[in-house]
């Protein structure tokens, strides 16, 4: 079978991409990134012991344990965010230079592999690793929360029994507690962490197609990340003190850089707010839009790049 024929086979593109993604995944996994999970486990367990005194007593009515649940979520999602963003940027920034250095890139591009497939494959490899890592961290966080929530619920049940609470009172407190435990919204927040990291990986991929060094790609990507979070203020936050010039600059920034404010729904979820499926869908759409634009941009630069 000729190369031209094989390239036209159904799913051939998908297969090519998955092979490249698998290779990238293996390449990254060998860098011992999963050691971070041990650190994450320590963070998740340690967050159980930061139980600051508060005015408990009778008026707290069994709600004392809720802040610990929030703390576990806050620390865990914070660690996930840090890991995923750092990893998404650094690993993507490393991929192309490493392939050039190992001469793997020449081997691949010598074959009839479209450059878009190569780029998408590499990005999918990074995303796959992020997905696996975040999935493992999510399981750990959920187990931790479930155990702690069971303890809180048991304490509340004893309190309710001792005080002969009505069913309505029990239900009210249980409802508040369940909101702070492992919910579908919380899983949505973990996905939001993944989506934000995916956008950052796509940004790093775009920069690495014309950048000359890994360090440059990493630094610029982090700058893009912070500017993306700064947009809300640049466009006239609560201060309302911007001049017209500052506002115009802010609008230009808003057009060029991604807006990561949307992904801050994570904070609300930590506080017990529920994210609806439609809102989650919109967040996925936002991330897909960004990733799509940056991948197409990467391919546009990379398509006729000479090595």
């Amino acid at each position, binding site marked *: 079978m000729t190369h031209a024929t094989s390239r036209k086979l159904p799913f051939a593109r998908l297969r090519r991409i998955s092979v490249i993604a698998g290779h990238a995944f293996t390449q990254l996994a060998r860098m011992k990134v999963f050691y971070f999970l041990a650190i994450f486990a320590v963070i998740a367990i340690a967050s159980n012991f930061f139980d*600051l*005194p*508060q*005015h408990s*007593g*009778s*008026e707290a*009515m069994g*709600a004392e344990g*809720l802040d610990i649940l*929030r*703390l576990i979520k*806050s*620390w865990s*999602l*914070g660690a996930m*965010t*840090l890991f995923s963003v750092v990893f998404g940027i650094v690993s993507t920034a490393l991929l192309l230079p490493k392939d050039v250095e190992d001469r793997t890139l020449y081997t691949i591009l010598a074959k009839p592999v479209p450059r878009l497939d190569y780029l998408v494959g590499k990005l999918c490899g990074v995303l796959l690793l992020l997905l696996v890592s975040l999935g493992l961290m999510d399981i750990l966080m959920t187990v931790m929360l479930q155990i702690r929530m069971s303890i809180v619920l048991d304490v509340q049940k004893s309190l309710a029994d001792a*005080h002969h*609470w*009505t069913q*309505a*009172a029990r239900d*009210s407190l249980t*409802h508040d507690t369940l909101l702070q435990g492992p919910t579908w919204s919380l899983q949505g927040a973990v996905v939001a962490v993944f989506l934000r990291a995916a956008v950052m990986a796509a940004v790093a991929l775009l920069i690495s197609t*014309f950048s000359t060094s890994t360090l440059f790609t990493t630094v610029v990507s982090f700058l893009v*990340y*912070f500017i993306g*979070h*700064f947009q*809300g*203020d640049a466009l006239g*936050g609560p*201060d309302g*003190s911007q001049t017209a010039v500052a506002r115009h600059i802010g609008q230009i920034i*808003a*057009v*060029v*850089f991604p*807006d*990561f*404010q*949307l*992904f*801050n*729904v994570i904070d*609300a979820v930590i*506080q017990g*707010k529920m*994210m609806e499926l439609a*809102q989650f869908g919109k967040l996925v*759409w*936002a991330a897909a*839009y960004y990733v799509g*634009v940056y991948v*197409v*941009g990467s391919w*546009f*630069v990379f398509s*006729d790049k000479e090595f």
Partner: protein
Amino acid sequence: MKRPLKYCLLAIGLLAAGGLRPLWEAPMTREFRATGLLAAPVGLDTRDRIGQTSSAVALGGLRTLVATFLNLRAYTCFTDKRWSEVADTYDLMVDLAPQTTQYWDMGSWHMAYNAASDYRIDSSLPPARRREAWREWILRGEAFLRRGIRNNPGDWKLLAALGRLCSAPDKLRDYAAAADAFKAAADTGQALPYVRRFQLYSLARCPGREREALEMARQLYQEPGNRSTTFVSVLFVLEEKAAPSLDPASHAAALFGGPMLAYNELSLFWLRQNERFPVDGVAAALTALETQLVIPKNKSVFTKAVRRDETPDEWFQDDSELMREELYDQQGIAPRRK
């Protein structure tokens, strides 16, 4: 294609894609803000005060985490009794995480209870200054709590906390405000049953609103879970006030489910004079019940020390006065079997 031209085309493409974004991004942001999924952007003032590093972290999408670390800092300030720093830190925390009601609650507690009590017993200050500081910190705590309520409308816990603060025996004792706060909390439909009882207790202590309180008490009495010591005692005094012709002893025995129970529970109520509950008929009922139950003189409730109803004028009379333990309503006393 030449590189410079390629980069120009890339820039144009990115600008075009960015130009299309507001079509879906702006409504999405508005919707997320409206539903409380997104907080307001971090203000310049907040960024200045949390410092560059924390600001960078907060802008990096970790606002809640920064607030968590600030909570640890606030605890250190609290243990060192650096009250202004406690207040400043909680201000920052609620700027970063305005929907974490616990921060509003804890912040107001530190200000109105801990800081105020600390100044109340601070023997290094003259009485006039102690009184001024005590009052100032209570008001700061109250203002902080009210700001939290404005930021989290419909949160029953903050409203109940405001009610407790307004009705606390060693605070400003604004029972009308407390009744309003407890009512608002109970009206959310999510509050625990004690909140409605606390509304009654505050109402009972508002001069001129006893009739309203009595109607409410009778309504609440229908629910056996409400019949705690305080509740039945309040119902008793309100009925005594409305109909002074009632025989206090038999009225109490009927209401409490027996003379001994009535004597024990009314005795507890009698000793809580610092809480300024009306005590119509209580002394008469206790006297009659002591005779009826043949209580020895040395065991009489009238020989025990009551928690006197003191005023700030007395608290700040001299510097040797020690803080008295405030008494909260004893929640969770099992309802008596009828």
